[in-house]
């Protein structure tokens, strides 16, 4: 198992490096930050001065060398726009995103497994039909629409929840609910499908023949075997959330990393783009390792 994790770590590190190179050079191909930072009527002298101050005049390869040199010392550079260390800006935002992702995925996982399992156990019955329709609607409804409807109904009409922002626990309910919908729909479908297959397998028939009751059949015999594909999908969905929920963050004014990344790209704030990509990449890398461990715990065949 250690060997597997080691291999994983090395390949992730190689991917991270490739990502840095790619993003560094590609982002610099997309335009001059001086043109965006300074007002349209700023003179060439002012632009030149701006590029000089921020080292944008050097050849890109020199800039890259300098960036890597700083990076080794864990210096991610300054944000062009905010005149603060880029990593501070990113970590501040990432904490919000991490909590949002963590809470949402926990709720989604618990809910999807329970509803999916029950649906699988009652295939074709009203509960199953209802769960399937619900999950399809959830998986296909656009989140900006759910978000706006959520605000109109729960904040403006009923006055139960704040429209947006942060501050109290109530501020989290709408964003989490909106983020909940799609992964719930998807994971529910996978749980259901996987459970149906597992419930039809010979070992379940054997267990039933031995007289094991329904509940242990679902939760002890079937679920564990049905979980492998489910975990893969959970990992995918969690990775998407860690990248930032741009739409939800934008609508609810939630200070997460998704909106930060989009804004930095639009403003060509290179250091923030790179820092944000590295932080999320590392987070996803750690999450992948956790998923590998989960696989290994569930399925002894993978441990070797």
């Amino acid at each position, binding site marked *: 198992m250690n060997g597997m994790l080691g291999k994983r770590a090395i390949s992730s590190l190689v991917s991270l490096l490739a990502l840095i190179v790619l993003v560094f050079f590609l982002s610099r191909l997309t*335009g001059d930050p001086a043109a965006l930072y300074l007002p349209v*009527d700023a003179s060439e002298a002012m632009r030149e001065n701006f590029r000089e101050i921020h080292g944008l005049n050097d050849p890109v390869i020199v800039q890259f060398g300098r960036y890597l040199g700083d990076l080794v010392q864990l210096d991610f550079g300054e944000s062009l726009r905010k005149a603060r260390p880029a990593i501070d800006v990113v970590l501040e935002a990432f904490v919000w995103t991490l909590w949002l992702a963590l809470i949402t995925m926990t709720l989604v996982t618990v809910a999807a497994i329970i509803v999916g399992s029950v649906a699988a156990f009652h295939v074709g019955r009203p509960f199953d039909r209802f769960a399937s329709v619900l999950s399809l609607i959830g998986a296909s409804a656009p989140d900006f629409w759910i978000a706006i409807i959520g605000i109109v109904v729960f904040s403006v009409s009923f006055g139960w929840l704040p429209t947006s922002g942060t501050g109290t626990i109530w501020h989290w309910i709408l964003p989490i609910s909106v983020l909940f919908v799609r992964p719930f729909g998807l994971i529910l479908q996978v749980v259901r499908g996987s459970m149906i297959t597992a419930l039809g397998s010979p070992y379940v028939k054997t267990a039933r023949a031995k007289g094991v009751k329904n509940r242990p059949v679902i939760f002890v015999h079937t679920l564990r075997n049905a979980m492998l594909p489910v975990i893969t999908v959970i990992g995918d969905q969690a990775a998407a959330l860690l990248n930032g929920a741009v739409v939800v963050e934008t609508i609810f004014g939630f200070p997460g990393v998704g*909106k930060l990344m989009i804004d930095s790209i639009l403003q060509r704030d290179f250091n923030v783009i790179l820092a944000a990509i590295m932080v999320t990449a590392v987070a996803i890398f750690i999450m992948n390792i956790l998923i590998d461990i989960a696989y290994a715990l569930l399925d002894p065949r993978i441990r070797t």
Partner: protein
Amino acid sequence: MKRTIFMAGAMLATTALSPAFAQDAGVTIVLGEEPDLVEPCMATRSNIGRIVLGNISETLTELDVRGDEGLKPRLAESWEMVGDDTWRFHLREGVTFSDGSAFDAEDVKHSFERAQSDQITCEISRYYEGIEITPEVVDEHTIDFTTDPAQPILPLLMTLLTIVPSETPIEFTREPVGTGPYVLSDWAPGQSITLERRDDYWGEAPEVASANYVFRADPSVRAAMIATGEADIAPSISAIDATTEMDMSYPNSETTYLRIDQSMAPLDDVRVREALNIAIDREAFVGTILAEGTELATALNVPTTLGWNPDTKARPYDPERAAALLEEAKADGVPVDTEILLVGRTGNFPGATETFEAIQSMLSDVGFNIRLQMVEVAEHEQYYSKPYVDTQPVLVGAQHDNSRGDPVFSMYFKYHSDGRQSGISDAHADELIEKATAATGEEREALWSELFGYLHDEVIADVLLFHMVGHARVGDSVDFTPTIATNSQLQLAEIGLN
């Protein structure tokens, strides 16, 4: 049981909201974007100026945007010319900064030099470009500015110079100190900025005790926040939401236009440019794609600008004549069939894409060969500023904002041959711009007026479209009317409480 829990939750939710109402004489203002900095020398950038100007930082002079007083004293009590090229400012006495230090002429000198420093890129400095300005402290409350060449509008330029204490380091600060009635008390990046009223402000104490700024990118959320009472003022909401009694429209000083690069055929032909102008049914946009109250533009600057020419009339929509003009030009060998690229910016203003699509269709109807391309801001900038794309003729759809009262902030860079965004190269226009820039009083006004008329009627420099309106939503608990300057500054002292 379940119902009880649900109701309890709902009640708790309402309680959690109540601090927004309970704040003592405080207001919450919801803006579309958070400033990256709260730096006084960047206050000409609108998202920073809205929070800083007149609240945290003050300037020597200020422009009266609510009445017609013109230039008013603020930190300077009076000013006059001493000699041909020197302006003298007499500073207000008894003024202190929020850090307790006294305000004097050295602070003004330092503020100017800091803004000009090449170690940082203070946005304010661009307004002083090309002018050699030397500040000289005469005594504690008097300062001279000697300029080369002479600057008739230096007192107007001083509306932009925010004053910081002489101890302020050159690098950008995150703890701005100013002489204004408010002080920055809290800044949670990504969430909110809070200003609190000072007790030792030199002027009349404003009614609002504190202001909490929050940021929501989505205009309908901003509108909803006023409706639910979570915020009191949303200076910019979309026209679609502006349907309640709390909403008002106001000219926001933005002018939308198509910049014509006249160096490329067929756009170098004046008949073609006239055809572009009369082929667009401007009135059809108002009250449909664009908000009611939008005005047809005959100049890049809004009518309240010095020298705006009332005799210049918008060309009436006349597609038949436009087609005829094109035919005429074609007969003379002008390549009118050449594909013209129309560049628009996504999200430039509400309804931008629809507006440019409609313009493309109207131009195509009279015989132009137009290809529309909607781009994001960085790509737009590559078309908007020199050096221009020279592979094909281009029309750039853009907006220009000058609420500062004088065309000098627009004319050079939009119409002078050397201007970074000028589409024309016209010796007479250059001469008028140079003369007007150096002139004062009535002569200045007359020269600008002549220039406005010349550009619109004879050169047909661009396709002027609309003076835009913005929409604000103001809650019942406050009394606030937006002005043409609300885009760039929002003085809390102008907010009353009901």
